[in-house]
């Protein structure tokens, strides 16, 4: 049942590429001390500017750098996380499922920690990162478990 949600293996490499571009674009402004500063007209179901009235279902011109990096990151990460391994079988599916449980648990333990010890504006940063961490922790955990399994000695 779990396997039905997975894409063919070839999507995994496409996912890594998209994810890589997303990560590069989100890290670049910190490295080069510049903003991407991309503005474009977008269709917004809700648009709530700092100054002014909230708009609904309208086209607005806004900074899309966060949208772009976020969409690239999420698309890439989803493709990586939801693509089959080359030899996906029942054992690998069980590793996938346990990695997902592990990731959700670790993610929420980290969030709980942040809830208790981080206050003020910085908590907004925690919330921003937390949107991506479940997928990220899952990808890291699953690939680590797979790597550990692949490096097992060949036994006669």
């Amino acid at each position, binding site marked *: 049942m779990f396997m039905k949600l997975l894409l063919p293996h070839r999507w995994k490499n496409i996912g890594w590429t998209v994810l890589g571009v997303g990560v590069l674009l989100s890290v670049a402004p910190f490295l080069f001390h510049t903003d991407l500063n991309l503005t474009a007209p977008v269709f917004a179901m809700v648009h709530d500017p700092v100054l002014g009235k909230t708009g609904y279902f309208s086209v607005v011109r806004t900074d899309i750098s966060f949208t772009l990096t976020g969409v690239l990151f999420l698309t890439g990460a989803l493709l990586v996380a939801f693509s089959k*391994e080359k*030899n996906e079988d*029942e*054992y*690998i599916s069980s590793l996938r499922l346990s990695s997902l449980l592990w990731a959700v648990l670790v993610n929420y333990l980290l969030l709980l920690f942040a809830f208790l010890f981080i206050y003020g504006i910085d908590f907004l940063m925690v919330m921003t990162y937390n949107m991506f961490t479940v997928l990220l922790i899952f990808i890291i955990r699953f690939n680590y478990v797979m790597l550990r399994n692949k490096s097992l000695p*060949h*036994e006669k």
Partner: protein
Amino acid sequence: MKNKIKIERAVHSFTQDELAQKIHVSRQTIHAIEAGKYVPSTVLALRMARLFQKPVEEIFELEQEDL
């Protein structure tokens, strides 16, 4: 659950890779089953039994803690 996969594999002189290919799973799966880290599905257990031409009960055995 105990299993005799490793013994059966030796009897038929299959490597882990060869056995994996014959029953359409990854080598990691065979390794995990032999190490007792993973209990295969009924389908996989039956596939192994068919390959080794033995009833499933002769390859897989319940332990006290499974009862």
